[in-house]
Each structure stands twice: as structure tokens, then as C-alpha cells.
């Protein structure tokens, strides 16, 4: 690799890691609770 490619490489990976870790953590914490799609139907059963 050329010197400039190594520089790009060293800059790119921390940025990519930061963006993906942030996105992954948000996707994990914000995902709907299990069986969330059943809730409206279940509410219909409540008298």
C-alpha cells in the first residue's frame, strides 16, 4: 500500500467503527419488544 492509502486506511477504520457501533447499539436498544405486533390484537380481547 502507498503512504496515502495507509493514511486513508488509518482514518477510515475508526470512523467506520464509530458509525457502525453507534448504529448497531441504537438498532439493538430501540428494537420493538417481542410480540409487539400482537399487542393491538391482545388489547381487543380486554373487556
Amino acid at each position: 500500500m502507498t503512504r496515502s492509502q495507509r493514511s486513508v486506511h488509518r482514518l477510515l477504520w475508526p470512523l467506520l467503527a464509530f458509525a457502525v457501533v453507534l448504529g448497531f447499539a441504537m438498532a439493538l436498544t430501540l428494537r420493538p419488544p417481542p410480540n409487539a405486533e400482537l399487542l393491538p390484537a391482545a388489547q381487543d380481547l380486554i373487556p
Partner: protein
Amino acid sequence: MSSAFRAVQWNRTKVVYDGILLAGVTLYIGGYLILAHWLDPPKDLPAAIDLRIRAFGSCAFFMLTIILSIGPVARLDRRFLPVLYNRRHFGVLTFLVALVHASFMVEWYAVQNALPSLYDELTKFSDYGKFIGFPFKALGIVTLLILFLMAATSHDYWLVFLTPSVWKRLHMALYAAYGLVVMHVALGVMQNDRNPFIPAMLASGFALVTLLHLVAGWRERAGDRAGARRSEGWLAVGPPLSIPDKGARIVTPPRGERIAVFRDGTQIGALSNLCAHQNGPIGEGRIIDGCVTCPWHGYQYRLADGCAPPPFTEKLVTYRVRIAHGVVEVDPRPLPPGTPATVRYE
């Protein structure tokens, strides 16, 4: 190396490499499908197709993880260099596995006569403003396009046409593709499927690849520090015997590319550390059969003038070398490629 165009130059190593690749992919996908059918048989055709989507998708993810690990692992430990040799075939196979994954996804909609739903999903532009609910399939499509671009330009024809520097920059798009794949799964199947293996697979794969690239990059940084300067701007390499016989020491000028100073018996010469093929680290190679040999793909050059032996035409930049007060010195100003510039010491 090639003196004329050929679609693929097969040799025994490539055949063995590809055989192991194909066997690995077949074993993984076959094992996945057999185990899944045995543990929880699919109830209908869409469920059976869904299993295939997951088998090929997870296989492509693991393949991409391995491909992106090969480069830094080979830089950290030379024993992994043989894995790097035919990495392009690995990449092309990954594209094909990802393509099958995508085609099963289309089939899943088709067997339920729901192809318009797929179209609606991808063209509901208001969803692109959401985070949860983002059309994750679009991320997969972009990734597949990047993998296609990589596979289509993987041949040496494109490497020569684009030049190694541009080609390498283009192929760095694979890093972005890997990030997109992680988000494709995180915003897709991970939202509905509570199987803890899915986030574990994503997190461990991405953490491994990132860590390897960061560690390898950090180690390379030390090599980019400029070497000691001598009189008239020449760089000190060290006593002749400090250069391993049939090996090299690498020196770095203050600006510019690394220089590989080789010793072949009593002959000393300096070449660019960048192989003409893929900018591989020539200085980490050895002199084999009288030629400096790149550790990545075996491209060879004469130490005397940096020229590939006939009938090949590649040439490397050379540098003037001298021995002053028992120390080998190299002039960091490059000579035209193919210029003879070696010295002998007594």
C-alpha cells in the same frame, strides 16, 4: 504476472485454494439447511425459502468477515500470506453467495404473489427518514452492487487499466460494504428475531475485523517514520551485513514511499517497496531464483535494475545506493523505473 491477456491463469495453488473455498461454502450452507430442517422443519414454501435466505446471507457475512481479516492478519503474521494469494476468488465467490441470498429474497415475495410489496417497501421514501423501520433491504442492495463492482473489476485487466493505486482505492469500498451489511442485518432480521446469535454474530465479526485493522494500521504507522538522514539527504540503512542475505531492510524517506534495500550476497540494491502489480510490500519478500519476489502474488524483478525478467515488462523505480564509512546509504530521490543502480561491497 502476465505478458498477454488471459481470463484466469490457473495453477495448482489456485485450484486447491478454490477447492477449499467451495467445500467450505457447501459444508456451511448444507450443514445449516440440514440442521435447521431437523430442528424446526419449515411449515410451508415461504418458510423453506426463508431458511435459504438466512443460510446464504449468514454465509456471505462470514465470508466477508474472513476476507476483510486476511489483509491485516497477513501483515501481522507472515504465515497467513498464502491465504492472501487468491483472495480475489474469495471475493467473487462471496458476491455469488450474496447474489443467491438476494435472489431467494425475491423468490420469497414471488411465491406469495407479493412482488409489488417489495417494490412498495423500497420506494416508500418516507421510511428512509426513519431509523427503526428504515428499508433495510436497500442497504443490502447497495452492498450487493459494491460486491458486484469489486468482482467485476477483480481481474488484472482492470488493475492495469485503472492503475494499482486507483484500483486499491476503489476496492476500499468493501469496508463500507461491510458496515452496510452489519446495518442491513441489525435493522432487518435482528428487529424481529430474538435469537441472541444474530447480534452476537454481528458484534463479534465486526469487532474482530475492526480490531485487526486498527492493530495492523498502528503497527504500520511505526514504519512510516522517516529513517535517519546522512549527508546530502541520503538515508542510512546500516552496515551491509545488517541486511539479511536475499532479504531486505525497509527505510522511509521523510516524504515519499518506502524503499526496500536488498542484499544478494555482496550485491546491494534499492527498489521501491511498492510492487507494480498491487502495490504489495516488495521489501517483505525474498530473492528467489535471483529475482526479488513479492510476497503477495509472486511477481518478480531483477535486483540490478528493477525490471521483471523477460517476457514480462513490469519495472520498478530504483534508487542509488552507496557505502560510506561501512554504512549502506540510499538516495531517496527515485530513478526512472528500470535504471540499474546496485553496488557491491568487499
